[in-house]
């Protein structure tokens, strides 16, 4: 990296990590109240571990079936929508889907069920390539040398430990910081996790030091999540993509379809039923117009749209500006990764501690800063993936006498377009339906879509909540427009 680029990048990285630093400093001051949080910590850990194990089992099982059946990548579409569904929207959908059966899906078991439905697809999407890269050549090597059946597990399973561990770490971090599902399915029956506890403490009118209490929660989240942050996604060795004889094709297809129906179809049906039909007469009676008659909803949707668009634009512009500085881009992305990987609650609390005494606090600007910091690694990673191969092509222009600026304009940036598109399609839906940061940082007048949904539920306006959930779902599904090769 050139010295010219190093100084601003270091400064940028320092600023970007300041909220987490502020959280740790404030949390250290509240260390005395940590013991009171032990029960919630144990519940959170138990749920996160169990959710990770269930997601790995379900997603890994599906990935194994799809791999052995040699299903094409199109079959990933059976599980992808369930992953794109924002988890709090999925929770809503499950409530509304099970309502006619008089099942109230509240409490730890239902939190685990919705988490599994939402995060098993992530395990599937990450583990299937790992299986395809690792297993075929090992299996062939075992079989041709007479190692079959149970004995072959000794040769096939250990190489998967690394990818399994990496995927487990990613899911564990996501569950540890998940706010929407425990807030919607746990809070009504008194089941709290650290993420929901931080929110509750911050808003509590009866606590003497709500900020200090929330900081203590943030500190525990940091302690629980940092060990999992060390791992990166490891796909195992890259072998030749030999094919194995196909097996269990029908079972694999049926399993994927069944999972898609349960994890995506069921909540979708619940949302549609609640949002579009009268709960008593069953007549078609869309709630969307009614929902938009509320100023809170209108402003929430408007704010979410504006904030998501602005955040995506800012991040794309920044990533484009950094693209010519490959090593700086990589360094900055690595520095910022914790902002995305660590529970959003930590970033939200950190921003509160950092900016509470500035004019930015309680304005949409703090939400914009939060979104930009939270989603920056996605934009940078996407451009980094593209720039890796483009560097040589830009150099090929420069070495033939083309200036650096012209080389990037004619070669680099045009070739980056698909990666920028991928980043936009990833960031916009995630930001549009973001809930964790929004719930902590919004102020009256700067509500977001997620906050509007929570508010509708608190007011008993379930139909409107469902309508807004459908809107978030529609935004999330735009990510399906991404070309598979860019997302892989």
């Amino acid at each position, binding site marked *: 990296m050139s010295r010219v680029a190093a100084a601003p990048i270091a400064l940028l990285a320092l600023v970007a990590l300041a909220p987490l630093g502020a959280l740790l400093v404030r949390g250290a001051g509240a260390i005395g109240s940590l013991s009171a949080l032990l029960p919630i910590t144990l519940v959170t850990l138990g749920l996160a571990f169990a959710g990770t194990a269930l997601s790995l089992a379900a997603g890994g099982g599906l990935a194994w079936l799809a791999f052995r059946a040699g299903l094409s990548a199109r079959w990933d579409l059976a599980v992808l929508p369930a992953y794109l569904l924002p988890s709090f929207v999925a929770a809503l959908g499950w409530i509304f889907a099970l309502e006619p059966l008089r099942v109230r899906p509240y409490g730890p078991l239902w939190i685990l069920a919705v988490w599994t439905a939402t995060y098993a697809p992530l395990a599937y999407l990450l583990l299937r390539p790992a299986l395809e890269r690792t297993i075929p050549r090992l299996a062939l090597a075992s079989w041709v040398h007479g190692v079959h059946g149970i004995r072959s597990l000794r040769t096939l399973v250990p190489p998967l430990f690394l990818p399994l561990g990496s995927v487990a770490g990613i899911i564990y971090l996501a569950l540890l910081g998940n706010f929407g599902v425990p807030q919607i399915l746990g809070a009504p029956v008194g089941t709290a996790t650290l993420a929901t506890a931080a929110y509750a403490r911050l808003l509590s009118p009866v606590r003497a030091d709500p900020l200090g209490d929330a900081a203590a929660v943030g500190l525990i989240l940091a302690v629980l999540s940092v060990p999992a942050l060390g791992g990166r996604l490891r796909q195992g060795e890259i072998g030749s993509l030999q094919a194995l004889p196909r097996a269990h094709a029908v079972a694999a297809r049926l399993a994927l379809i069944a999972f898609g129906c349960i994890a995506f179809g069921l909540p979708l049906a619940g949302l549609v039923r609640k949002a579009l039909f009268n709960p008593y007469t069953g007549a078609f009676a869309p709630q969307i117009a009614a929902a938009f008659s509320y100023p809170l909803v209108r402003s929430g949707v408007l704010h979410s749209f504006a904030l998501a668009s602005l955040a995506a634009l800012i991040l794309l512009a920044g990533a484009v500006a950094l693209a010519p500085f490959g090593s700086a881009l990589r360094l900055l992305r690595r520095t910022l990764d914790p902002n995305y990987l660590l529970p959003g609650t930590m970033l939200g609390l950190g921003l509160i501690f950092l900016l509470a005494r500035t004019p930015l606090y309680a304005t949409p600007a703090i939400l914009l800063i939060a979104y930009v910091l939270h989603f920056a690694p996605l934009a940078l990673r996407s451009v980094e993936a593209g720039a890796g191969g483009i560097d040589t*092509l830009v150099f090929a222009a420069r070495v033939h006498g083309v200036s650096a600026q012209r080389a990037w304009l004619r070669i680099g940036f045009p070739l980056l377009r698909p990666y920028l598109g991928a980043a936009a399609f990833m960031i916009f839906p995630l930001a549009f339906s973001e809930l964790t940061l929004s719930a902590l940082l919004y102020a009256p007048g700067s509500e977001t879509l997620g906050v509007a949904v929570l508010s509708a539920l608190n007011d008993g306006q379930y139909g409107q909540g469902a309508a807004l959930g459908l809107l978030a779902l529609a935004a999330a599904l735009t990510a399906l427009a991404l070309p598979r090769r860019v997302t892989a």
Partner: protein
Amino acid sequence: MLRLEAISKAYGERAGAFDVDLDVNAGEIVALLGASGSGKTTLLNVIAGVSHPDRGRLWIDGREITQAPPQARRLGYVFQDFALWPHLTVREHVALVAAPTFDQTALLERVGLAALAARKPHALSGGQRQRVALARALAAEPKIVLLDEPYSALDPVLREELRVEIAQFIREAGVGALHVTHDPDEALSVADRIAVMDGGRVVQFGPTRDVYRHPSSVAAARAFGRVALLHATVGSGFAHVNGSRWPIADRALEGRATLAIRHDELAVSDTGAEGTIVARFTVRDGTYIRVRYPEGEVVAALDGPPGAKIRLSPANELAAFATA
């Protein structure tokens, strides 16, 4: 055209290039021959401006370019994987790097791409892509063209066809070329001079035939492959092999020495050194035998059954180097 003077670029203590002197004249092709890790890529990066040398200086066409950026060096570059721009057509590849007055059509016709000018790289064969890479390099009107293992992505038949043809294009264009390769056949078939690299240093640099026939060191001899090393006692211009005398080039050499014997240097001779055939093998260009002597084993482009005795003598004076 291109001159390197005492260029050094180190990566740690051993990796890199050290004290390299090299020159390439107009219309001349110089091959930089060496195994993987010999420092070829480091040197190429320094010449192309990817990295700057720790020491030494570079000139192109009399102008010092040691610290100049890549675009100011007047180079053409044919990359190992071609590095074509996937979103540009063949003509756009040429147009982007050519000066406004440059006759692009004439160049495309000369390299056989005129009919393909509107195509993008994905619609071209491997050989056609190679020509686009060369056309782009020549369109920049360079003083020097760098060719980095340019045929490694092609199949053997196409490789042999293209390397002669492309060498001809380069000579016609009147530019100098530095052709980096690990393939001795490629170096021998296209280069006017060869620089052999080993351990980051140029261990021999000279006309192609001289470097091949008169290696200056064991490393220089081994760079061309197909060489056997025999450890013998030498003196008075001869090596003593199993009681016979084989002539060596270095008449002043005395004592223990290593003989570097190419596979085509030994012939059957009634007065030659008697050895035992221990193996016989056939490769695409003929049959070879491995012959054992008390001093070691040699390989000869001859035929005979394993176990048989055979007497061999070298047709020319052999390269011999004092054993350290």
